[in-house]
């Protein structure tokens, strides 16, 4: 199970990086979203995957999963959600102001 998840996270990373290297702004943002998904899956996998075991430590429960990665993912998901929405608004405004969403032409020059 862990191996499959690790491969899946790897695929998400590669597609994310591929999209990140595109010229169109929207594709780049999708790339960052894919990479963050990959990172989140990866954290979950690192805490060992177990079925049917709650992430709670209690006297009655003998078999439990590590709750820490889940707490970390939750934080990380919220953060990447916030950043992605900010990035979308930013990209919209930037492409409106500059009249293009192509990174080649958004490079800027020496004089400004």
């Amino acid at each position: 199970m862990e191996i499959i998840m690790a491969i899946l996270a790897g695929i998400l990373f590669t597609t994310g990086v591929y999209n990140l290297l595109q010229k169109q702004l929207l594709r780049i943002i999708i790339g960052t979203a894919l990479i963050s998904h990959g990172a989140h899956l990866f954290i979950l996998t690192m805490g060992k995957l177990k079925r049917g075991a709650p992430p709670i430590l209690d006297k009655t429960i003998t078999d439990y999963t590590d709750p820490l990665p889940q707490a970390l993912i939750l934080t990380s998901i919220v953060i990447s959600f916030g950043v992605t929405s900010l990035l979308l608004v930013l990209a919209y405004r930037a492409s409106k102001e500059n009249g293009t969403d192509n990174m080649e032409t958004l490079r800027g020059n020496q004089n400004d």
Partner: protein
Amino acid sequence: MISNLTILPVLIPLIAGIIATLFHKKLTLVRIFSQVSTIISTIVASYVFYYVIQNGTLVLESGDWMAPYGIVLVGDLLSVTLVLTTNIVALAAVFYAPYSLSDEQESFYFYTFYFLLISGVSGAFITGDLFNLFVFFEVLLMASYALIILGGGKVQLRESIKYVLINLFSSMLFVTTIAFLYSVVGTVNMAQIGQRVSEVNQSGILTTIAFLLFFVFGTKAALFPLYYWLPRPYIAPNPVISALFGALLTKVGIYSIFRVFTIIFVHETAITHQFFIWIAAFTLIFGVIGALSTNNIKLIVAYNIIPAVGFMIAGIGIYNETALSGAVYYLVNDMIIKAALFLLVGAIAYLAGTSDLRKMKGLIHHYPMLGWLLFISAFVLAGVPPFSGFIGKLLILQGAIEANEIIITIIGLLVSLLILFSVMRIFIQGFWGEKDAAIVPNKPLARKLMLPVAFLISFSVFLGIGAEWFYPITEEIGNNLMNPELYIKSVLKE
């Protein structure tokens, strides 16, 4: 109970930031409120600093969860020194802001984001938990995203996309690296990671993780070859925002490298720390070439961040007590002088009506004080005695000679000369020469803009002349950094 002091430098700006949103349109009120809050925060930070000098490391176990399980906030000497420096920089910025920002920019939540930035930076300095460090990174980055687009100009929007993307990518890598580290050592508490890594002897996989972390922090700190994103986004926003960025953001990256590579990854120094020295050498050279390559005075100062970072990385790469205490001295000095230079250059560009060096001349006739402040800060930056830059560099280079690292010593000395030249160009071309009749001097505004700069520069001069007072503190920090078991013991209480 007294350990609650540790969280105050994070909490005060956070609360002040929230309160400032309530009356963001009433400019006079929000200005006074922000100035008073920053003064209070500085006083509290000074008290925490004083307390830690007197009584040793403060550790707050939040929610009363014992050290390795809950989140710990650790106010050791290095952290509280940097928190105090952050507050001093913030103090200068908050008094500069009303004269530099437009009313519209100020009312669009400048003060809120400013406080959140300070809160995030202080939090990153004070946390003792690797994942919490990531969270505070995000807090300060979010505030910086908002600050960089404040005003929404065409250039700002264009540059901010690059800034957000590079930071987002390195943050995602940071999370992934934490996951790697968690799977190997099973904890995210820095002290406990350090303890466990020393128990299992740093194996190959841990050294690989060390390099991944170095890549993440190196991107934030703008090291060679990852600095290319830094100069342009840093000059896009208003000077006061540039000053906060230049003084604080890259330094958080440097601080993280200091922490991680003195507590956790200290067993393979022949691989990791030797690598840092090479990186430092290239960072020094390429940064200063950038500073010499442009005629834009803001870009000159922005490029000068890079060689300064190079000096600090050289200090950690050399890895002995002298070099580390020198690097800490230089870090404190650089936070203050970079803020001063950004504010100063912002004032010059505003008063001269251009940031192009070729179009400037004879400013000294209109603004003599401005010229001499720039002159002094160039000396501080390059490390001319008796100013504070000198002592930091002297200690780093002395440490390099002790460790027989001759090449980095020579490069460091040559680069210092070039740094002096790069800033002196502003003085020579902008201030010397014929009087420019086209400029109508605005003396009252100049005086208001110069006051915060003079405050910061006087601190730099004090750190240089008062070295006898400040050096023992950095020496102790250097000693603490060389002996990670002190930090581990104070956090885990074993």
